Each structure stands twice: as structure tokens, then as C-alpha cells.
């Protein structure tokens, strides 16, 4: 079991944490999630792989040369090669692409359409989410994975339509997929399980300064839903953030009257804290004196953000006789955040060996590791590994690459 659970809960996990630990210990031992039914959602319409426009090349050539042969002679290719580019959708290699661009005096981009990385089609409003200024940065980060994440995997062969017309239905479906009853709050383990079952890859990276206000964002990379999470995010904040992004990932389009973000906030909130859980907790808190309320807060702080809980009560108009002001709750939440730490420190603590780092990432990014990263290790340079594990200012990626290979071989 990754040390995160031991460290976070001082080896005394809460009831919910305990459930999560058992399930993940089981999976880690089996090194497979085959006992799950995997629900998948594939969106084929939004994202399109970079599309080669052979016809456009033909038009350029015919408008500038007496014949296609003349052009072929200029760039020293055969007529057959040219024909395959125009009629069969073959794409010239890099050297020929450059030669074509120079000869025709065009940009290479003029011969392509669309991008591999599909961005969301709506504009989130809040500062904590991806805004216009950070869109390019988010796309650039996602594009780093465009060569290793593809939709050829058999994992994505099943499709499941998720009802998205009302937030309550969707949040209920999320909980059902994650296998949670209606009186428990969603735990870290539950949300990772939900993402896995929905076929959504979770990738942890240190976001650049342009994305520093962002906790997480979602993208489709070659048809595969991916959520990028900033390793600087505090662990207690992750559940809501991931649920929010999962909601974005599974929705086909904005079919509600609300903004997309408001809808996903509602889904995330209700999925994390069902009404039954909040009502029960409300009774507990209302009967408690100040000291007892503090103990309750500390107890649940192991499982989720206390401030998130406070806001959830507020959003749903559930009155709680708090002995603490909102600012005090914020302060408590903040100090708990600092105590539990950031997800990056848990995935890769300073003292961890490469082996431990591999296992930590493997546990929390299981789908990405199993389906895309580990099968492609032979084609990766050590530097690329260092880049995607944010080692550029630290260790050589070679040691990590070797450990990843050992992990891959142990799974086979």
C-alpha cells in the first residue's frame, strides 16, 4: 500500500479510508482491475486527430505548376509518392514536409486541419479554472502525451452513455459506478476508482506559472479522456476537483441552462457529499459543543476538505450551528492542508527511492500507466521520462526509466 495512507492517517485510517485501503491493497496485490466492470465513455465528435489535407496540397500544386510532375521533380519525389499523399491520405515524412513548404512557400500548418488535443468548447469563468490565458499552456502540456496516449487500446472498446441532463442523476450514477452507498462521503479511493471505471486517465504534473491558479484540467488526447492534476494541489482539495473534471470529461455537450462549470460543481458536490451524509452530519454537529465539533472536523479532515464540507452545507441551505466562523473554518482547513500536504509530496517524497515513486504513481495513475506508459517504455528516452515526471531540475530520468521497466516486467 502506498505510504500516503499511512502518513495521512497515521496508520489509523477512518472508516472510509479503511474501505479504500482494503480495496486498493487488493488491487495492488492482483496488479489488475479485472474484477471491475469498466464503464467507458467515448466521445467521437469533439476531438479529431490532426488531419492531413491531401486535396489542399493538390490544389496548391495545380495552381502553381504546369503539372504535378514538375512539382515532384522540384522536391525529388516520385509521382507515386505524390499520388499517395493526395489520394491515400499518406503524410510525407518530416524532411519532405519541409521541402514542400519551402517549395510552395506555405506553412506546414496550411496542409493540416485540427489538432490532436481537443480543448473544451466552453469557457470556464473562475480564476481557479483554465481560462483563455492558460489554454495554450494546458494544450501544450497535454500534447507532450500525444505520442503515447492513443485510442488503440482494447480498454476503450466499450461505450456507456451517462445521463447528463440533470446533475442529481449524474452524481448518483457516479456514486453507483464507484460503488458507494448513499450515506457515505466519497473518498480519495472512490474518486480514483470512478475515474478508472470511466476510462479516464489521471496524470500528475507540476503546472507551470501560467497554470498556477489551476488545480486540474481535462483534455481529450487522441480520443482518450485525460485529467491533468497539479502536483502542487493539496490532497484534501482533490476529491471535489477531480469530480468536477470527471463531470466535464463525460459530458457530451452543454445540454443544461446553466453554465458548464456550475453544472459540474453541482454534480461534484452531490457526488462527494450525498444529502443523507450531510443531513446525518448536520445532526451530529448541531448536538456538539465546540470541542466536540472540533474533534468531528479533525476526524473528517482525513477524508476530505473541511472547507469543502462547510461550503457544501452552505450551497444546499442546510443550517449548521457552527461554533466556528467561516474564517476560522478556512484557517483550520488551511492548516490541515499544510499538515497533510500536497499530492506531489505524497507521490514523490524527497526521501523516496525511484521504486517507491514508480509504485506511488502507478497506484494513482493506474490506467495511464497500464495502458499507455508502461507498454511504450522502449520508445522513451530517459529525458522524456524525466520531463513527464518533472525531474528536470532534479534527478536523471534514467534511473526512473529502469524502475519503470522493472515494474512493467513484474506486471507481465
Amino acid at each position, binding site marked *: 500500500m502506498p505510504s500516503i495512507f499511512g502518513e495521512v492517517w497515521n496508520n489509523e485510517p477512518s472508516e472510509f479510508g479503511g474501505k479504500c485501503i482494503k480495496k486498493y491493497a487488493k488491487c495492488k496485490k492482483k496488479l489488475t482491475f479485472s474484477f471491475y466492470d469498466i464503464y467507458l465513455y467515448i466521445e467521437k465528435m469533439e476531438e479529431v486527430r*490532426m488531419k*492531413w489535407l491531401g486535396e489542399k496540397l493538390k490544389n496548391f500544386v495545380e495552381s502553381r505548376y504546369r503539372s504535378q510532375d514538375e512539382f515532384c521533380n522540384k522536391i525529388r519525389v516520385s509521382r507515386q509518392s505524390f499520388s499517395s499523399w493526395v489520394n491515400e491520405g499518406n*503524410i510525407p*515524412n*518530416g*524532411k519532405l*514536409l*519541409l521541402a514542400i*513548404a*519551402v517549395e510552395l512557400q506555405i*506553412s*506546414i*500548418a496550411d496542409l*493540416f486541419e485540427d489538432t*490532436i488535443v481537443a480543448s473544451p468548447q466552453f469557457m470556464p469563468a473562475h480564476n481557479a479554472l483554465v481560462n483563455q490565458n492558460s489554454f495554450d499552456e494546458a494544450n501544450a502540456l497535454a*500534447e507532450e502525451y*500525444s*505520442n*503515447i496516449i492513443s485510442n488503440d487500446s482494447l480498454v476503450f472498446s466499450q461505450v456507456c452513455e451517462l445521463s447528463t441532463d440533470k446533475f442529481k442523476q449524474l452524481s448518483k450514477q457516479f456514486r453507483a459506478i464507484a460503488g458507494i452507498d448513499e450515506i457515505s462521503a466519497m473518498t480519495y479511493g472512490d474518486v480514483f476508482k470512478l475515474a478508472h471505471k470511466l476510462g479516464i486517465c489521471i496524470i500528475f504534473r507540476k503546472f507551470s506559472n501560467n497554470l498556477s491558479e489551476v488545480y486540474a484540467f481535462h483534455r481529450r488526447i487522441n480520443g482518450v479522456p485525460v485529467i491533468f492534476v497539479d502536483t502542487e494541489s493539496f490532497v484534501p482539495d482533490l476529491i471535489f476537483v477531480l469530480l468536477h473534471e470527471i463531470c466535464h470529461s463525460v459530458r457530451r455537450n452543454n445540454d443544461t441552462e446553466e453554465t458548464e462549470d456550475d453544472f459540474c460543481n453541482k454534480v461534484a458536490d452531490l457526488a462527494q457529499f450525498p444529502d443523507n451524509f450531510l443531513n446525518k452530519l448536520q445532526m451530529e454537529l448541531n448536538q456538539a459543543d465546540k470541542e466536540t465539533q472540533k474533534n468531528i472536523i479533525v476526524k473528517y479532515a482525513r477524508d476530505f476538505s473541511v472547507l469543502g464540507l462547510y461550503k457544501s452545507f452552505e450551497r444546499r441551505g442546510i443550517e449548521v450551528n457552527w461554533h466556528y466562523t467561516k474564517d476560522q473554518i478556512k484557517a483550520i482547513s488551511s492548516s490541515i492542508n499544510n499538515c497533510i500536504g500536497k499530492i506531489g509530496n505524497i507521490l514523490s517524497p524527497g526521501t523516496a527511492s525511484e521504486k517507491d515513486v514508480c509504485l506511488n504513481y502507478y497506484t494513482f495513475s493506474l490506467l495511464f500507466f497500464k495502458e499507455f506508459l508502461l507498454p*511504450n517504455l522502449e*520508445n*522513451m*528516452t*530517459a*529525458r*522524456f521520462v*524525466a*520531463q513527464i515526471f518533472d525531474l*528536470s*531540475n*532534479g*534527478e*536523471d530520468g534514467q534511473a526512473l526509466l529502469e524502475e519503470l521497466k522493472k515494474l512493467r516486467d513484474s506486471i507481465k
Partner: protein
Amino acid sequence: MIIVTDTCSILMLLRLNPAMFCDSCYECCTTQEVFDEIFQTRKFKDKYPWRDTYRGVIKPIPQGHVINAEQYKNVSAAVNISLQEHSCYNLSREDKSVVILSLLLPDIQPNVSDVAISTTDRALIAFSQEEFDLENIEPLEIVSIWLEKGALIFDHVTHMPIFEDWIAKGEPFPSPAAKRRFKQLTGYDFPK
């Protein structure tokens, strides 16, 4: 000829010839990304404790400084599209910068007739060759080029320990052809 040298090649060659970037007779250059990697990677500091001594002599060609923006865009696009569409390789930013600079050099320095790269990274070698017909010259071959031109005089006492250090640090072994050529020029066997 100009050889765009990657991190691994620089770290093998720099002590042998600290002037490798300072004089055009050595025909070497590198990228800003490679320069940054050499001096910002902490493990390199441990593995190559002498690296900081040479900070002032590595002179990268600044990207975008004298390069036509449109051509830079085209070259970057060609590299990225090739990676996405044709190859199964995964290259880092530094890897790509070596390829991009290699392709841009004829624009930056029109009197340059041939451009090659120098790296020991197999994926980078394969990608560059397959997609852009870029030749790779391994570090020991570069040493032989310098020796043949008279740009470097081989000194068994000072240079052989550096080669032994290559092996001790786990750097890739030179190819048999490179070792043969080295022996022909110096009379010495490359250390085993």
C-alpha cells in the same frame, strides 16, 4: 560541417576539448535547451562535478534570435508532426531542440553545407535519421575528426583518464568502427 551536440556528447567531449564551442574549427554548436539541462540538472552536478567550470565556454545558439519566424514554425511543425504521425519515439524538449536547430542551421549560417547531430540517445538517432536524414556522429568519432584535422593533439597522459572516466560513468561504449579509427590515428586502444 556543423555538428549539433546533445547533452550526453557534450559531457563526454568537453573536458577533452573545452574550446569545442569557441572555435569554428571544431564545428560544434548546441541549443539553449541543452545548455539549460546541463547546468540545471542536479544529478549532473554529482555525476560531473567539474561541469560548472565550463559554464562560460558552452555557447548555445539562441533559438529564434536570428531565425526567420516562419521557418522556425515550419521546422517545429515538421518535427512534431513527424513524431505524431510517423514515429513511435518520444522525444523531450531538449531532444527536439537538437533536431530543430539542425534543420534551421542552413538558414542561420548559409555557408554551412552539412549538418549532423551528435548524441548517444538511440531514439533521437533513429528519429533524426528516419524523418530528416540527419547523420549522427558519435562522440569518439568527433574526437577522430578533430585529430585528423589537427585541431586536437592527442595526449595519452591527460586524455586517456577522461576516456576511462566515460566508462566509469557508464557512458555508452563507442562503436567498433569509431574505436578502430581512433586507434589508427593515435596508436592507442580505446580503454576497455
